[in-house]
């Protein structure tokens, strides 16, 4: 939609340019590799590079979807300055980091526990491994709906269970009170993605040589000490791989939150990307939203770099040959 005013005047001139080029290059024969790569380059340019460039450019404009002409007003870094001084943005930013921290740690612990249990299973391990992957097979949107239902204060499973067990006689407003809503979202995130950790850590456990564990037992370790000093250091690189993958996931968490609370109540569960989405489409302030998005990508990059460092260190430590 906003591409049209841009391309219409440019069409003719670029067409002319094209002919001139052809004239000039009558004798130019592109090499076979160039020719063969050209379709890929054109497609990439069309679907990745151009949109990326446009969105980056628009983050320097006050572009609103409702006022296409604003696309041509260049305002420099004003969007970015606005973000940096915007309290709502920073709150969402902080909340995203908090969700990242809480969810990743929980997933890591649960995944580790799960992986160790499955590794111990002597029969039916394949079946268990498949079962473990189940939550990943559902669309996050569906997970969102499911947990929205479960945490519903009137008809939800959670409250029903709590009341039946006599733990409470009130309808706990899971999705309505800010802190509780955050907890509910965390639970949904953790449920849907613990298996990423579990599967990767399980891979680590299965790849682990058994002799060092036996050596530790002979060296006087209790089962706990064996785990703490031998098994855990070995599987940490695998956990860091999971962390890297999941930190990108959570840093762009959108779907589950969108469905469960839509950032509510009153913005109390607003995360970076729900805020970006709202700014872009509800408020129609595309330029500002793009600026937020670019800023948020920084966060993802930071986390990725951090975990890659950890991974490299841990790999180095166990003398991994991969």
């Amino acid at each position, binding site marked *: 939609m906003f591409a049209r005013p841009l391309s219409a005047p440019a069409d003719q001139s670029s067409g002319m340019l094209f002919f001139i080029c052809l004239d000039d290059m009558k004798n130019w024969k592109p090499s076979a590799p160039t020719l063969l790569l050209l379709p890929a380059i054109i497609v990439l340019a069309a679907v990745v590079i151009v949109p990326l460039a446009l969105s980056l450019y628009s983050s320097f404009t006050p572009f609103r979807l409702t006022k296409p002409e604003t696309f041509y007003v260049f305002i420099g870094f004003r969007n970015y300055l606005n973000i940096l001084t915007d309290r709502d943005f920073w709150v969402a930013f902080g909340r995203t980091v908090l969700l990242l921290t809480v969810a990743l740690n929980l997933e890591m612990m649960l995944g580790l526990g799960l992986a160790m249990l499955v590794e111990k299973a002597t029969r039916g391990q394949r079946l268990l491994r498949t079962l473990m992957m189940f939550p990943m097979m559902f669309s996050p949107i569906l997970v969102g709906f499911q947990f929205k239902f479960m945490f519903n204060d009137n008809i939800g499973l959670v409250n029903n269970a709590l009341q039946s067990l006599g733990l409470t006689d009130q309808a706990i407003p899971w999705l309505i009170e800010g802190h509780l809503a955050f907890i509910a979202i965390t639970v949904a995130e953790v449920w849907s993605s613990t298996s990423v950790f579990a599967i990767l850590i399980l891979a680590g456990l299965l790849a682990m*040589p058994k*002799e*060092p564990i*036996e*050596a*530790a*037992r*002979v*060296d*006087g*370790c*209790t089962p706990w*000490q064996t785990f703490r*000093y*031998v098994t855990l*250091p*070995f599987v940490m690189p695998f956990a860091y791989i999971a962390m890297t993958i999941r930190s990108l996931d959570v840093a762009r968490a959108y779907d589950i939150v969108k469905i469960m609370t839509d950032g509510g109540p009153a913005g109390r569960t607003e995360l970076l990307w729900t805020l970006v989405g709202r700014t872009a489409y509800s408020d129609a302030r595309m330029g500002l939203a793009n600026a937020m998005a670019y800023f948020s990508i920084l966060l993802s990059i930071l986390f990725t770099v951090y975990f890659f460092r950890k991974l490299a260190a841990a790999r180095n*430590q*166990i*003398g*991994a*040959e991969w």
Partner: protein
Amino acid sequence: MATVSLKKLEKRYGATSVVHGIDLDVADREFIALVGPSGCGKSTTLRMIAGLEEISGGEIRIGDRVVNDLPPRSRNISMVFQSYALYPHMTVKENMGFSLKIAGRPQDEIEKRVVEAARILDLGQLLERRPSQLSGGQRQRVAMGRAIVRNPDVFLFDEPLSNLDAKLRTQMRTEIKKLHAKVQSTIIYVTHDQVEAMTLSDRIVIMRDGHIEQVGTPDEVFKRPATRFVAGFIGSPPMNLVEATVDGGEVRFEEGASLPVPRQFRQAVSAGQKVVFGLRPDDIYPSGHGIHAGEAEDIHVVELPVSITEPLGNETLVFVEFTGRDWVSRMLNPKPLRSGERVDMSLDLSQAHLFDAGTGRSLRN
């Protein structure tokens, strides 16, 4: 510091039995080698002593304690694994000090004992390295260092040298022997290499299919093998073993050739008995080129055709055709021999062995 004794020790995996009730008494400070072909149950036995494998029957004592149900950490043993089993994420120093750290020893004592072990094993330069930065031989030494810092009652070695190349293996063999002289602990050493067993141990236990075939000093198992299996297993090149039948005063081989019954067996055999005749390569040699050249014992000379020769420098292995097959003989002060050449071979029958063809037991009494 500790004796080890096994009584009717058994191991079954489900329905299959892999160790069938073995009895063994290891004396304090003894170096004992468990030797036998691959799959005969050596590792299983060792791992049961370590407590890494549950026992299915019988009893294990270390010192005066029955340790059947004790976990490995309560047995005060050290083990060196075939694959070294170093902790990949710890430095050499941490690897060696780990057991002391777990035992809650003070840091300065750990430091002292690690440095001492490193000195014995010549690991001083490597203390800060990680296992992945070490060569096979160095890893091997670290594994031994890790075992000795603990000052255990018993050392258990499971084929510790089999991943090393031939030269290093010989070198480490000497190191282990020196180590035993220094630490003076009981050592149970598993190997499939009879040379290692012979060179290192005070006594050798020869195992086969989960049974013990013979227990004895290297000299005993070499000179007086209790069974045909031991005779064939110990010694390199292996003993010549050929089936034969006793016929009057002779052992008659299937291909028609025959030899007198060795004197030491005259009382033990009866006519018509199926036997296996055994003679070590050292006890058959081109006349004048033998080990026992000076002291004529019970020499029987046969003219035999040479099939091939394997010169080794100071000696030559000569394969001669006899009884329809090749017999290996050892020629000292070798002279060149051609294939097909007929030479006078001296057979020292005083060193010959006879085994019952059925039971495989030695007929010596």
